Protein backbone atom coordinates (compact mmCIF):
# COMPACT_ATOMS: atom_id res chain seq x y z
CA UNK A 1 0.00 0.00 0.00
CA UNK A 2 2.72 2.39 1.01
CA UNK A 3 4.68 1.55 -2.12
CA UNK A 4 1.71 2.30 -4.31
CA UNK A 5 1.02 5.80 -2.96
CA UNK A 6 4.67 6.63 -3.23
CA UNK A 7 4.65 5.56 -6.82
CA UNK A 8 1.56 7.60 -7.50
CA UNK A 9 3.14 10.64 -5.85
CA UNK A 10 6.21 10.16 -7.92
CA UNK A 11 4.31 9.95 -11.19
CA UNK A 12 2.29 13.01 -10.25
CA UNK A 13 5.47 14.89 -9.47
CA UNK A 14 6.89 13.80 -12.82
CA UNK A 15 3.79 14.97 -14.57
CA UNK A 16 3.82 18.36 -12.86
CA UNK A 17 7.47 18.71 -13.69
CA UNK A 18 6.80 18.04 -17.35
CA UNK A 19 3.91 20.50 -17.46
CA UNK A 20 6.05 23.15 -15.79
CA UNK A 21 8.86 22.55 -18.29
CA UNK A 22 6.53 22.93 -21.24
CA UNK A 23 4.83 26.04 -19.86
CA UNK A 24 8.02 27.78 -18.79
CA UNK A 25 9.77 26.71 -21.97
CA UNK A 26 7.07 28.09 -24.21
CA UNK A 27 6.94 31.33 -22.26
CA UNK A 28 10.73 31.66 -22.29
CA UNK A 29 10.93 30.90 -26.02
CA UNK A 30 8.42 33.59 -26.79
CA UNK A 31 10.28 36.13 -24.66
CA UNK A 32 13.81 35.25 -25.63
CA UNK A 33 13.27 35.06 -29.37
CA UNK A 34 10.64 37.57 -30.38
CA UNK A 35 9.62 37.47 -34.00
CA UNK A 36 11.47 40.13 -35.93
CA UNK A 37 9.70 40.93 -39.18
CA UNK A 38 12.57 43.12 -40.39
CA UNK A 39 15.36 40.58 -40.18
CA UNK A 40 12.98 37.77 -41.14
CA UNK A 41 12.91 38.73 -44.79
CA UNK A 42 16.37 40.25 -45.15
CA UNK A 43 18.17 36.93 -45.40
CA UNK A 44 17.98 35.51 -48.94
CA UNK A 45 16.50 32.06 -49.21
CA UNK A 46 18.84 30.94 -51.94
CA UNK A 47 22.47 31.65 -52.45
CA UNK A 48 21.82 34.55 -54.78
CA UNK A 49 23.90 37.55 -55.65
CA UNK A 50 21.19 40.11 -54.91
CA UNK A 51 18.21 40.33 -52.62
CA UNK A 52 16.19 43.39 -53.54
CA UNK A 53 13.89 45.38 -51.34
CA UNK A 54 12.50 48.86 -50.92
CA UNK A 55 12.49 51.39 -48.12
CA UNK A 56 9.84 54.10 -47.83
CA UNK A 57 10.36 57.10 -45.58
CA UNK A 58 6.90 58.28 -44.59
CA UNK A 59 8.41 61.37 -42.95
CA UNK A 60 9.42 62.57 -46.40
CA UNK A 61 6.36 61.63 -48.43
CA UNK A 62 4.34 64.66 -49.53
CA UNK A 63 1.60 62.70 -51.28
CA UNK A 64 2.16 64.17 -54.75
CA UNK A 65 1.36 60.85 -56.39
CA UNK A 66 4.23 61.19 -58.89
CA UNK A 67 5.33 57.62 -58.07
CA UNK A 68 1.94 56.22 -59.07
CA UNK A 69 1.92 58.34 -62.22
CA UNK A 70 5.46 57.40 -63.22
CA UNK A 71 4.71 53.74 -62.62
CA UNK A 72 1.75 53.88 -64.98
CA UNK A 73 3.84 55.57 -67.68
CA UNK A 74 6.78 53.21 -67.29
CA UNK A 75 4.88 49.96 -67.12
CA UNK A 76 1.88 50.53 -69.36
CA UNK A 77 -0.60 50.32 -66.49
CA UNK A 78 -4.12 51.40 -67.59
CA UNK A 79 -4.93 54.98 -66.54
CA UNK A 80 -8.30 54.08 -65.00
CA UNK A 81 -8.44 54.35 -61.20
CA UNK A 82 -8.86 50.59 -60.67
CA UNK A 83 -5.46 49.43 -61.79
CA UNK A 84 -2.36 50.28 -59.79
CA UNK A 85 1.04 48.80 -59.28
CA UNK A 86 1.73 51.52 -56.76
CA UNK A 87 -0.55 54.13 -55.24
CA UNK A 88 -0.64 56.62 -52.37
CA UNK A 89 -3.10 56.67 -49.48
CA UNK A 90 -3.82 59.51 -47.12
CA UNK A 91 -4.46 58.48 -43.55
CA UNK A 92 -6.17 60.91 -41.22
CA UNK A 93 -6.61 60.01 -37.58
CA UNK A 94 -9.28 62.22 -36.06
CA UNK A 95 -9.34 63.53 -32.50
CA UNK A 96 -12.22 61.15 -31.79
CA UNK A 97 -10.11 58.18 -32.85
CA UNK A 98 -11.79 57.61 -36.18
CA UNK A 99 -9.42 56.71 -39.01
CA UNK A 100 -10.16 58.13 -42.47
CA UNK A 101 -8.35 56.62 -45.45
CA UNK A 102 -8.53 58.09 -48.93
CA UNK A 103 -6.87 57.42 -52.22
CA UNK A 104 -8.64 59.32 -55.00
CA UNK A 105 -7.25 57.93 -58.26
CA UNK A 106 -4.37 56.48 -56.30
CA UNK A 107 -3.21 60.00 -55.46
CA UNK A 108 -2.25 60.80 -59.07
CA UNK A 109 -4.58 63.81 -59.19
CA UNK A 110 -3.46 65.01 -55.77
CA UNK A 111 -5.15 65.00 -52.39
CA UNK A 112 -7.65 67.41 -50.96
CA UNK A 113 -7.72 67.56 -47.21
CA UNK A 114 -11.21 66.28 -46.37
CA UNK A 115 -11.08 66.66 -42.58
CA UNK A 116 -10.80 70.21 -41.13
CA UNK A 117 -7.58 70.99 -39.26
CA UNK A 118 -9.21 71.26 -35.83
CA UNK A 119 -10.52 67.69 -35.96
CA UNK A 120 -7.22 66.12 -36.99
CA UNK A 121 -5.05 64.37 -34.47
CA UNK A 122 -2.55 63.22 -37.05
CA UNK A 123 -2.41 62.85 -40.82
CA UNK A 124 0.13 61.32 -43.17
CA UNK A 125 0.58 59.72 -46.58
CA UNK A 126 1.42 56.09 -47.21
CA UNK A 127 2.68 55.01 -50.64
CA UNK A 128 1.74 51.41 -51.28
CA UNK A 129 3.27 48.89 -53.63
CA UNK A 130 4.01 45.20 -53.89
CA UNK A 131 5.94 44.12 -50.81
CA UNK A 132 7.95 41.50 -52.72
CA UNK A 133 7.41 39.11 -49.86
CA UNK A 134 10.01 36.46 -49.22
CA UNK A 135 7.18 34.04 -48.46
CA UNK A 136 4.55 35.39 -50.82
CA UNK A 137 0.98 34.31 -50.27
CA UNK A 138 0.31 35.06 -53.94
CA UNK A 139 3.10 32.80 -55.18
CA UNK A 140 1.95 30.09 -52.84
CA UNK A 141 -1.53 29.92 -54.37
CA UNK A 142 -0.70 30.22 -58.08
CA UNK A 143 -1.92 26.88 -59.44
CA UNK A 144 0.38 26.76 -62.48
CA UNK A 145 3.59 28.51 -61.45
CA UNK A 146 2.93 31.65 -63.47
CA UNK A 147 4.05 33.90 -60.62
CA UNK A 148 7.20 33.32 -58.67
CA UNK A 149 9.88 34.80 -56.46
CA UNK A 150 12.93 35.32 -58.63
CA UNK A 151 16.30 34.25 -57.19
CA UNK A 152 17.02 37.92 -56.40
CA UNK A 153 13.87 38.30 -54.34
CA UNK A 154 11.48 40.00 -56.76
CA UNK A 155 7.99 38.60 -57.23
CA UNK A 156 7.34 38.45 -60.97
CA UNK A 157 4.57 37.28 -63.29
CA UNK A 158 5.01 35.08 -66.34
CA UNK A 159 2.69 36.76 -68.85
CA UNK A 160 2.72 33.84 -71.24
CA UNK A 161 1.79 31.31 -68.59
CA UNK A 162 -0.83 33.03 -66.42
CA UNK A 163 -4.28 31.51 -66.84
CA UNK A 164 -6.09 34.40 -65.18
CA UNK A 165 -7.73 32.47 -62.36
CA UNK A 166 -7.33 35.48 -60.02
CA UNK A 167 -6.46 33.29 -57.06
CA UNK A 168 -3.37 35.41 -56.45
CA UNK A 169 -5.42 38.61 -56.63
CA UNK A 170 -7.54 37.23 -53.82
CA UNK A 171 -4.56 35.99 -51.87
CA UNK A 172 -2.50 39.20 -51.79
CA UNK A 173 -3.13 40.77 -48.38
CA UNK A 174 -1.87 44.12 -49.67
CA UNK A 175 -4.19 44.40 -52.69
CA UNK A 176 -1.28 44.83 -55.07
CA UNK A 177 -2.49 42.72 -57.97
CA UNK A 178 -5.06 43.33 -60.68
CA UNK A 179 -6.12 41.73 -63.95
CA UNK A 180 -4.81 43.81 -66.84
CA UNK A 181 -7.92 44.73 -68.85
CA UNK A 182 -6.11 44.55 -72.19
CA UNK A 183 -3.57 41.79 -71.75
CA UNK A 184 -5.99 39.65 -69.71
CA UNK A 185 -3.34 38.35 -67.37
CA UNK A 186 -2.52 39.34 -63.85
CA UNK A 187 -0.24 42.34 -63.45
CA UNK A 188 1.74 43.68 -60.54
CA UNK A 189 4.77 45.71 -59.50
CA UNK A 190 7.99 44.12 -60.74
CA UNK A 191 10.17 46.53 -58.75
CA UNK A 192 10.89 47.76 -62.29
CA UNK A 193 12.87 44.61 -62.87
CA UNK A 194 13.59 45.72 -66.45
CA UNK A 195 15.19 48.90 -65.06
CA UNK A 196 17.10 47.54 -62.08
CA UNK A 197 18.66 44.84 -64.27
CA UNK A 198 19.93 47.62 -66.57
CA UNK A 199 21.45 49.45 -63.61
CA UNK A 200 18.66 52.02 -63.39
CA UNK A 201 16.45 52.65 -60.40
CA UNK A 202 12.71 51.88 -60.26
CA UNK A 203 10.60 54.54 -61.98
CA UNK A 204 8.71 55.42 -58.79
CA UNK A 205 11.93 56.05 -56.92
CA UNK A 206 13.34 58.16 -59.77
CA UNK A 207 10.17 60.22 -59.95
CA UNK A 208 9.87 60.86 -56.21
CA UNK A 209 10.67 64.56 -55.70
CA UNK A 210 11.57 64.05 -52.03
CA UNK A 211 13.45 60.78 -52.45
CA UNK A 212 11.13 59.10 -50.00
CA UNK A 213 11.60 55.77 -51.71
CA UNK A 214 14.90 53.97 -51.33
CA UNK A 215 15.47 50.99 -53.56
CA UNK A 216 18.36 48.72 -52.68
CA UNK A 217 20.02 45.38 -52.34
CA UNK A 218 19.70 43.80 -48.90
CA UNK A 219 22.73 41.63 -49.60
CA UNK A 220 24.99 44.60 -50.13
CA UNK A 221 25.73 45.84 -46.64
CA UNK A 222 26.75 49.24 -48.00
CA UNK A 223 23.62 49.80 -50.03
CA UNK A 224 21.39 52.80 -49.37
CA UNK A 225 18.59 50.51 -48.28
CA UNK A 226 20.63 48.73 -45.61
CA UNK A 227 21.84 52.10 -44.37
CA UNK A 228 18.24 53.31 -44.27
CA UNK A 229 17.17 50.24 -42.30
CA UNK A 230 19.96 50.74 -39.79
CA UNK A 231 19.32 54.43 -39.26
CA UNK A 232 15.54 54.34 -39.01
CA UNK A 233 12.95 52.45 -37.03
CA UNK A 234 11.31 50.51 -39.81
CA UNK A 235 8.26 48.29 -39.88
CA UNK A 236 6.56 46.23 -42.54
CA UNK A 237 2.85 46.06 -43.31
CA UNK A 238 0.85 43.25 -41.70
CA UNK A 239 3.80 41.53 -40.04
CA UNK A 240 1.44 39.07 -38.30
CA UNK A 241 0.76 37.41 -41.64
CA UNK A 242 4.36 36.25 -41.80
CA UNK A 243 4.69 37.18 -45.44
CA UNK A 244 8.31 38.26 -45.22
CA UNK A 245 7.49 41.64 -46.73
CA UNK A 246 10.52 43.49 -48.09
CA UNK A 247 9.07 46.98 -48.30
CA UNK A 248 10.16 48.75 -45.13
CA UNK A 249 8.36 51.81 -43.83
CA UNK A 250 9.93 54.40 -41.58
CA UNK A 251 7.50 56.00 -39.09
CA UNK A 252 4.71 53.58 -39.90
CA UNK A 253 1.68 53.98 -37.67
CA UNK A 254 -0.20 50.93 -36.50
CA UNK A 255 -3.40 52.30 -38.04
CA UNK A 256 -2.07 51.56 -41.52
CA UNK A 257 -3.55 48.43 -43.01
Amino acid at each position, binding site marked *: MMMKTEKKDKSRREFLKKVATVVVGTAAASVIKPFNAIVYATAPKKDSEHWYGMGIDLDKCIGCGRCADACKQENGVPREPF*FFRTWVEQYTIKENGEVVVESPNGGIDGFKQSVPDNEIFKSFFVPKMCNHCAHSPCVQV*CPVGATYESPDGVVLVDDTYC*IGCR*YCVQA*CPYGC*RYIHPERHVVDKCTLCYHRIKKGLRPACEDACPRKAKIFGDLRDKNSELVKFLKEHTCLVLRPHLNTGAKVYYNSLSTEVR
Partner: protein
Amino acid sequence: MDPLIQNLYNVLTQVQGYIYPNEVELHWSLLIVLYPYITGLVAGAFILASLERVFRVKEVRPTYELSLITALALLLTATLPLVSHLTKPFRAYEIMITPHPTSAMAIFGFVYLWYLMVVLLLEIWFDYRRDFVIWSQEKTGIMKWVYKILTLGVMDVSPETLKWDERLGRIVTIIGIPSAFLLHGYVGFIFGSIKAFAGGSGSDTPLLRS
Protein backbone atom coordinates in the same frame (compact mmCIF):
# COMPACT_ATOMS: atom_id res chain seq x y z
CA MET B 1 -15.55 52.67 -73.16
CA ASP B 2 -14.90 49.11 -72.11
CA PRO B 3 -18.04 47.81 -70.37
CA LEU B 4 -15.93 46.37 -67.56
CA ILE B 5 -14.39 49.75 -66.82
CA GLN B 6 -17.74 51.52 -67.17
CA ASN B 7 -19.12 49.08 -64.64
CA LEU B 8 -16.20 49.69 -62.30
CA TYR B 9 -16.90 53.44 -62.32
CA ASN B 10 -20.47 52.65 -61.27
CA VAL B 11 -19.22 50.38 -58.52
CA LEU B 12 -16.80 53.04 -57.33
CA THR B 13 -19.68 55.41 -56.55
CA GLN B 14 -21.15 52.78 -54.22
CA VAL B 15 -17.98 52.02 -52.28
CA GLN B 16 -18.28 53.09 -48.68
CA GLY B 17 -15.22 53.55 -46.53
CA TYR B 18 -11.90 52.58 -48.02
CA ILE B 19 -10.83 49.56 -50.01
CA TYR B 20 -7.63 49.13 -51.97
CA PRO B 21 -8.08 50.60 -55.46
CA ASN B 22 -7.30 47.27 -57.13
CA GLU B 23 -10.05 45.61 -55.13
CA VAL B 24 -12.91 47.65 -56.53
CA GLU B 25 -13.22 44.93 -59.14
CA LEU B 26 -14.99 41.91 -57.69
CA HIS B 27 -12.87 39.07 -58.92
CA TRP B 28 -14.69 35.94 -57.90
CA SER B 29 -18.31 36.49 -58.77
CA LEU B 30 -21.25 34.50 -60.09
CA LEU B 31 -19.28 32.02 -62.19
CA ILE B 32 -17.22 30.96 -59.19
CA VAL B 33 -20.28 30.66 -56.98
CA LEU B 34 -21.94 28.45 -59.59
CA TYR B 35 -19.24 25.86 -59.10
CA PRO B 36 -19.92 24.96 -55.44
CA TYR B 37 -23.62 25.05 -56.31
CA ILE B 38 -23.16 22.43 -59.02
CA THR B 39 -20.81 20.25 -56.99
CA GLY B 40 -23.37 20.47 -54.20
CA LEU B 41 -25.86 18.90 -56.58
CA VAL B 42 -23.30 16.29 -57.64
CA ALA B 43 -22.53 15.30 -54.09
CA GLY B 44 -26.23 15.30 -53.22
CA ALA B 45 -27.13 13.08 -56.15
CA PHE B 46 -24.30 10.74 -55.31
CA ILE B 47 -25.33 10.46 -51.69
CA LEU B 48 -28.84 9.64 -52.86
CA ALA B 49 -27.44 6.81 -54.99
CA SER B 50 -25.26 5.56 -52.16
CA LEU B 51 -28.25 5.51 -49.82
CA GLU B 52 -29.62 2.71 -51.94
CA ARG B 53 -26.32 1.00 -52.64
CA VAL B 54 -24.62 1.04 -49.27
CA PHE B 55 -27.30 1.75 -46.74
CA ARG B 56 -30.02 -0.26 -48.49
CA VAL B 57 -32.70 2.39 -48.26
CA LYS B 58 -35.26 0.75 -50.51
CA GLU B 59 -37.45 3.85 -50.81
CA VAL B 60 -34.95 5.61 -53.06
CA ARG B 61 -34.34 2.60 -55.35
CA PRO B 62 -36.21 4.14 -58.32
CA THR B 63 -33.91 7.18 -58.30
CA TYR B 64 -30.68 5.19 -58.25
CA GLU B 65 -29.72 5.28 -61.95
CA LEU B 66 -31.14 8.75 -62.45
CA SER B 67 -29.13 10.19 -59.59
CA LEU B 68 -25.90 8.59 -60.78
CA ILE B 69 -26.31 9.87 -64.34
CA THR B 70 -27.30 13.29 -62.99
CA ALA B 71 -24.15 13.34 -60.90
CA LEU B 72 -22.02 12.52 -63.94
CA ALA B 73 -23.71 15.08 -66.18
CA LEU B 74 -23.39 17.83 -63.58
CA LEU B 75 -19.82 16.94 -62.76
CA LEU B 76 -18.84 17.25 -66.40
CA THR B 77 -20.42 20.70 -66.59
CA ALA B 78 -19.14 21.83 -63.18
CA THR B 79 -15.80 22.93 -64.60
CA LEU B 80 -17.36 24.97 -67.42
CA PRO B 81 -18.10 28.06 -65.30
CA LEU B 82 -14.63 27.80 -63.78
CA VAL B 83 -12.87 27.56 -67.12
CA SER B 84 -14.96 30.32 -68.67
CA HIS B 85 -14.11 32.52 -65.69
CA LEU B 86 -10.42 32.35 -66.56
CA THR B 87 -9.21 35.29 -68.58
CA LYS B 88 -7.03 32.85 -70.54
CA PRO B 89 -9.29 29.76 -70.73
CA PHE B 90 -7.16 28.01 -73.35
CA ARG B 91 -4.31 27.78 -70.90
CA ALA B 92 -6.43 25.84 -68.40
CA TYR B 93 -4.57 22.60 -69.20
CA GLU B 94 -1.49 24.03 -67.44
CA ILE B 95 -3.21 23.37 -64.13
CA MET B 96 -2.90 19.64 -64.87
CA ILE B 97 0.57 19.52 -66.43
CA THR B 98 2.40 21.82 -64.02
CA PRO B 99 0.36 21.78 -60.83
CA HIS B 100 1.90 23.89 -58.10
CA PRO B 101 1.97 21.65 -55.01
CA THR B 102 1.41 24.51 -52.54
CA SER B 103 -1.68 25.79 -54.35
CA ALA B 104 -5.04 24.48 -53.23
CA MET B 105 -6.42 25.16 -56.69
CA ALA B 106 -3.83 23.01 -58.47
CA ILE B 107 -4.49 20.03 -56.26
CA PHE B 108 -8.16 20.56 -56.95
CA GLY B 109 -7.53 19.29 -60.49
CA PHE B 110 -6.59 15.94 -59.04
CA VAL B 111 -9.41 15.87 -56.51
CA TYR B 112 -11.76 16.45 -59.41
CA LEU B 113 -10.07 13.81 -61.55
CA TRP B 114 -10.22 11.32 -58.69
CA TYR B 115 -13.90 11.83 -58.24
CA LEU B 116 -14.68 11.72 -61.96
CA MET B 117 -12.46 8.81 -62.97
CA VAL B 118 -12.24 6.65 -59.89
CA VAL B 119 -15.65 7.18 -58.37
CA LEU B 120 -18.37 8.21 -60.79
CA LEU B 121 -17.20 6.71 -64.08
CA LEU B 122 -16.20 3.44 -62.44
CA GLU B 123 -19.42 3.05 -60.57
CA ILE B 124 -21.53 3.79 -63.63
CA TRP B 125 -19.40 1.45 -65.68
CA PHE B 126 -19.88 -1.39 -63.23
CA ASP B 127 -23.61 -0.73 -63.17
CA TYR B 128 -24.07 -0.53 -66.91
CA ARG B 129 -21.45 -2.99 -68.12
CA ARG B 130 -23.99 -5.74 -68.73
CA ASP B 131 -26.23 -3.34 -70.66
CA PHE B 132 -23.31 -2.11 -72.72
CA VAL B 133 -22.51 -5.66 -73.76
CA ILE B 134 -26.13 -6.38 -74.70
CA TRP B 135 -26.56 -3.08 -76.55
CA SER B 136 -23.33 -3.53 -78.44
CA GLN B 137 -24.78 -6.75 -79.82
CA GLU B 138 -28.29 -5.44 -80.49
CA LYS B 139 -27.74 -1.94 -81.91
CA THR B 140 -26.58 -1.10 -85.41
CA GLY B 141 -24.57 1.71 -86.94
CA ILE B 142 -22.47 4.11 -84.94
CA MET B 143 -24.11 3.37 -81.61
CA LYS B 144 -23.01 -0.25 -81.87
CA TRP B 145 -19.40 0.93 -81.96
CA VAL B 146 -19.93 3.46 -79.21
CA TYR B 147 -21.21 0.74 -76.92
CA LYS B 148 -18.43 -1.59 -78.00
CA ILE B 149 -15.86 0.97 -76.95
CA LEU B 150 -17.72 1.56 -73.70
CA THR B 151 -17.45 -2.14 -72.81
CA LEU B 152 -13.66 -1.72 -73.06
CA GLY B 153 -13.71 -5.10 -74.78
CA VAL B 154 -14.94 -7.07 -71.78
CA MET B 155 -17.81 -9.11 -73.24
CA ASP B 156 -18.03 -11.57 -70.37
CA VAL B 157 -21.54 -11.48 -68.82
CA SER B 158 -21.44 -14.75 -66.94
CA PRO B 159 -23.20 -14.65 -63.54
CA GLU B 160 -19.86 -14.83 -61.77
CA THR B 161 -18.46 -11.73 -63.50
CA LEU B 162 -21.71 -9.88 -62.93
CA LYS B 163 -21.39 -10.69 -59.25
CA TRP B 164 -17.99 -9.08 -59.33
CA ASP B 165 -19.55 -5.99 -60.95
CA GLU B 166 -21.97 -5.75 -58.05
CA ARG B 167 -19.25 -6.22 -55.44
CA LEU B 168 -16.82 -3.76 -57.04
CA GLY B 169 -19.56 -1.18 -57.54
CA ARG B 170 -20.31 -1.35 -53.83
CA ILE B 171 -16.68 -0.85 -52.90
CA VAL B 172 -16.44 2.16 -55.23
CA THR B 173 -19.56 3.65 -53.67
CA ILE B 174 -18.12 3.27 -50.20
CA ILE B 175 -14.97 5.08 -51.33
CA GLY B 176 -17.21 7.56 -53.09
CA ILE B 177 -19.06 8.83 -50.04
CA PRO B 178 -16.07 10.51 -48.37
CA SER B 179 -14.89 11.56 -51.84
CA ALA B 180 -18.14 13.37 -52.43
CA PHE B 181 -17.61 15.28 -49.20
CA LEU B 182 -14.04 15.94 -50.23
CA LEU B 183 -14.99 17.29 -53.65
CA HIS B 184 -17.58 19.63 -52.25
CA GLY B 185 -15.70 20.56 -49.10
CA TYR B 186 -12.55 21.26 -51.04
CA VAL B 187 -14.08 24.47 -52.37
CA GLY B 188 -14.07 25.67 -48.79
CA PHE B 189 -10.40 24.84 -48.57
CA ILE B 190 -9.65 26.82 -51.73
CA PHE B 191 -11.31 29.88 -50.21
CA GLY B 192 -10.00 29.16 -46.73
CA SER B 193 -6.35 28.90 -47.67
CA ILE B 194 -6.30 32.54 -48.73
CA LYS B 195 -4.16 34.52 -46.33
CA ALA B 196 -5.75 37.85 -47.05
CA PHE B 197 -9.23 36.60 -46.25
CA ALA B 198 -9.27 36.09 -42.49
CA GLY B 199 -12.93 35.09 -42.40
CA GLY B 200 -12.29 31.96 -44.43
CA SER B 201 -9.08 30.88 -42.81
CA GLY B 202 -10.59 28.83 -40.03
CA SER B 203 -9.62 25.18 -39.85
CA ASP B 204 -13.29 24.30 -39.97
CA THR B 205 -14.06 26.10 -43.22
CA PRO B 206 -13.94 23.01 -45.48
CA LEU B 207 -16.37 21.25 -43.16
CA LEU B 208 -18.74 24.21 -43.05
CA ARG B 209 -18.77 24.45 -46.82
CA SER B 210 -19.44 20.78 -47.45
